[in-house]
């Protein structure tokens, strides 16, 4: 196999990696906010359930969670699993897992907000929803951006775990080529790909940080 073909095959895997990455962010970022609200809720049951959810999601391997999400429709509900469900299960497991981490990042950001911002908003007559979305959340986003960058970069590398459900993302592709051609070159190439991907992620996040640096 020549170098060009290898890169082409890795490229196909890269597309899957990118899909997992973007879809996970798309679902886990908002879901994290919902879980964060539950975690900070005054309702005891809601708060406890959210706490347990976060604890389990952070406390067990993502690889195991992928397997559980994939097989539970069959073992729990007796639904026959189709091949197409594999990719869905990957996205589902990733989104559920990352949402737990994002929820805690959001909570940290929200709790770091000075009480004065809430009080000023209250006296000015903003209702709770307006206070959160107009006053608090924009400032929280700025505060948590560095932590979100960290998590996002970890996600890029975590996408390789999709191999447990035989979804051929970039790392799986690299391993397959490496095994067939008995060379570690594809793995090294994959490493370069991951690195470049993360370089782009970091550059984008830095751009966002800069965009929000107009205030302190």
């Amino acid at each position, binding site marked *: 196999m020549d170098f060009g073909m290898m890169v082409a095959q890795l490229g196909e895997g890269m597309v899957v990696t990118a899909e997992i990455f973007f879809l996970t962010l798309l679902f886990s970022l908002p879901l994290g906010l919902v879980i964060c609200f539950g975690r900070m809720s005054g309702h005891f049951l809601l708060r406890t359930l959210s706490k347990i959810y976060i604890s389990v999601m952070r406390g067990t391997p993502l690889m195991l969670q992928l397997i559980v999400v994939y097989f539970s429709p069959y073992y729990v509900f007796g639904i026959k699993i189709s091949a197409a469900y594999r990719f869905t299960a990957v996205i589902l497991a990733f989104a559920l897992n990352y949402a737990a981490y994002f929820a805690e990042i959001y909570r940290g950001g929200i709790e770091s907000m*000075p009480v*004065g*911002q809430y*009080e*000023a908003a*209250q*006296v*000015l*007559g*903003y209702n709770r929803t*307006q206070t959160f979305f*107009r*006053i608090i959340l*924009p*400032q929280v986003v*700025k505060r948590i951006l560095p932590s979100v960058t960290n998590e996002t970069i970890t996600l890029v590398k975590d996408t390789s775990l999709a191999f447990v459900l035989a979804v051929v993302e970039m790392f799986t592709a690299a391993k397959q080529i490496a095994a067939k051609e008995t060379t570690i070159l594809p793995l090294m190439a994959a490493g370069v790909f991951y690195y470049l991907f993360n370089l782009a992620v970091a550059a984008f996040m830095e751009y966002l940080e800069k965009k929000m640096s*107009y*205030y*302190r």
Partner: protein
Amino acid sequence: MKYLEIEHLKKTFDNLQVLKDISLSVEEGEVVSIIGPSGSGKSTLLRCATMLERMDGGSLSYLGERAAWEENGTCVYAPKSELKRIRKSYGLVFQSFHLFPHFSVLKNVMDAPVNVDHVPKAEARLRAEKLLGQLGLADKKDAYPHQLSGGQQQRVSIARALALQPRILFFDEPTSALDPELTGEVLKVIRELAREHMTMIIVTHEMQFARELSDRIIFMEDGVIRQQGTPQELFGNPDERVREFIGKFQA
């Protein structure tokens, strides 16, 4: 007309009674200063009056409308929709400004009128620009709070409160976070408001200022109103504790 009426206000924090039976009423156009040592309950009184803190007992009314009253020994507040309307009758200026850092000066002043009172944007902008002009901040409207001095930030926060056209303005130690240099520019604004007969209730440590500006001064100590009266009455014939307190400021 009584703009604010507080009767038998009680407030306890963790078994510590911070306010013990405070009654206070403020007439239209009156400027009332509240002085007293720290820990005397001045700020808590203001926070209860502005509903940032729940009262444990007593009643609170604005412009004859009841916001809270006592029923069977506990304090009951009016329904949310009524409180929302009652809140419109007053504004509060905080010691440490609490401007919204992510909004420009102009947006800080016009955001609440637009989003809370549903004033058309163009009108809110005109109102905000006019206020900022009056407060000497016309050239700062596009700046962000962190780019301003403390005195300028406090003036923006006064403009922000005034933009909602409240009938009463509360000040919670408006100059305590400022250098002596910057204190003057904020006091000047409050003085101008007094000249325009704005009803104001000011918690302050600026004795000279309170004396020259107020229609009435209230001296608080240990959660009670120890003495109150016109500046002449209070400074001319202070009771023993008041004399001691004022003396500390003149020393």
